[in-house]
């Protein structure tokens, strides 16, 4: 009995600091933000009503969903292609693929967004070269628009899509694929009818991660969108710091959390958490 009690004391003492820290510095202030959304500028549901009626907010929500959907499809497809080589290539191919996945992964989001500015801006690499060879006379608008945002976000999110896909592809039994080939199926057919369906859980996991990340993305859209294609996260920033309307910023945050929470709940009905790493 005594040891049971001291066990519980020990656990409580060890776990308390972090839990206390999170309650005081995260959960409590989040409730404060929720309070803002109901009380600023005047008490009531006014901010949530504005969310449903304000044209600007609506167009930002729709743009965010559209960009997130495009980015999800493109980055999962691209990640799939490079993951196949990373998991099942020859040792040399694997090494190169790993390098190309991990180097961008560890480089900060700012550096990567800046790299795209250097490539895509009016006096950037691509426009300079295209003009030098006489292919175009005026620079193409590749950045400060939705195209730039989609390119930058896809680049950021590909490595995150790679990990769940790699986990699914590693657990796949080689013999099934060899059996399909042995029975006379072509490479293409084996890939589409055996390989892809058997990695479905990885595809769902990767798509969910990328989609959830893109909904709350801030830095890349703010730099590559140049203030023209604003997404939800940047709208929250603008409502807090530029046209002070804390209540609306808070209300958008609450809706974003609820939406992401619902998506995560949906995700964990189909995929176990340990399949995502």
């Amino acid at each position, binding site marked *: 009995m005594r040891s049971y009690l001291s066990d519980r004391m*020990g656990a409580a003492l060890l776990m308390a600091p972090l839990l206390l*820290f999170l309650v005081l510095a995260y959960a409590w202030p989040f409730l404060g933000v929720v309070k803002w959304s109901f009380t600023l500028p005047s008490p009531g549901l006014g901010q949530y009503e504005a969310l449903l009626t304000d044209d600007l907010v609506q167009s930002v929500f729709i743009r965010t969903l559209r960009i997130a959907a495009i980015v999800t499809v493109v980055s999962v497809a691209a990640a799939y292609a490079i993951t196949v080589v990373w998991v099942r*290539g020859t040792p040399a191919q694997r090494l190169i693929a790993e390098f190309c996945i991990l180097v*961008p992964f*560890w480089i900060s989001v700012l*550096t990567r967004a800046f790299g795209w500015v250097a490539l895509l801006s009016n*006096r950037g*690499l691509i426009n300079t070269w295209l003009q030098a060879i006489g292919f175009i006379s005026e620079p193409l608008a590749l950045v400060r628009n939705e195209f730039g945002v989609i390119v930058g976000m896809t680049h950021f999110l590909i490595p995150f899509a790679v990990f769940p896909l790699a986990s699914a592809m590693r657990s796949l039994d080689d013999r099934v694929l060899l059996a399909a080939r042995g029975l006379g199926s072509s490479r293409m057919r084996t890939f589409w009818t055996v390989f892809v369906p058997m990695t479905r859980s990885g595809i769902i996991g990767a798509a969910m991660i990328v989609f959830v990340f893109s909904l709350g993305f801030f830095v890349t859209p703010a730099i590559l969108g140049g203030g023209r294609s604003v997404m939800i996260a940047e709208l929250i920033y603008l409502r807090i710091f530029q046209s002070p309307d804390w209540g609306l910023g808070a209300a958008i945050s609450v809706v*974003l959390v609820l939406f992401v929470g619902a998506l995560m709940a949906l995700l964990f009905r189909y995929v176990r958490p340990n399949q995502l790493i």
Partner: protein
Amino acid sequence: MPTYRPGPVSLIIAAFVALFLLMPLLAVIPVSLTPSRMLAMPSGELSLRHYRALIEDPRWLQSILLSIRIGIVSSAFSTVLALCFSLGVWMFQPRFTAALVGFVLLPMVVPPVVSAITLYFLLTSISGFSSFFGYDTWLGVAMAHSMMTVPFATVLMLVSLSQLDRRIDLAARGLGATVWERATRIIIPNIKFGIVTAALLSFVLSWEEIGVTLFITSVNAITLPRLMWMGLRDNIDPAIAALSVILIIITVLVLAVRSFVARQRGGQP
């Protein structure tokens, strides 16, 4: 035994993806060597003036030192908190463990912008009665960074604890070791590697944190990413290209060393 290898079509598509992933990292190299004061491709001559600017302009050095200080403090704080929490979970396996771990991982799952507005609320509230710990102070930033990195540190610790053999701990317990002795003399020495990794990851995440930092700083606590952000938004400063090249080279070197060490370790069973 024959294995199933990717065919030529897969290899070609993967090569395009690889090129796409490396392109922006390579693009900053020529920009960093431009003699122009604005973002442009060098035409003809190359210049190292933007690298010199990094050394000569005190703002860069100040923000680098500030980022290092914040990184060390926040990483130490989150590593200690995560270590205690994970030890509690592993040694005592309390009820509701799953719910508690889920709660601790929240800052990792919640969209960063929501964490940012939450921490903005917290720090501006603190600013009301404390001038050195609230909004736009380095301690406030370090605290916010701990919040953002502690879930990652906890995951790493729990993973390395899950690989530890429970029987060593049971033996120590059977021989009469106290909780303190079990933790400090049995468990912690066995998960040293996980603890160091967690501290390093927390430092790196704090070093490059920008989403939350933007919300909680204005003019005093200018970390390196915050300074880069300012240079990117207004008038693009090619010094950022020079800095990016240096950061990319460091990353590539660290990854190369790590993969070399892993290879050496794997070579001898």
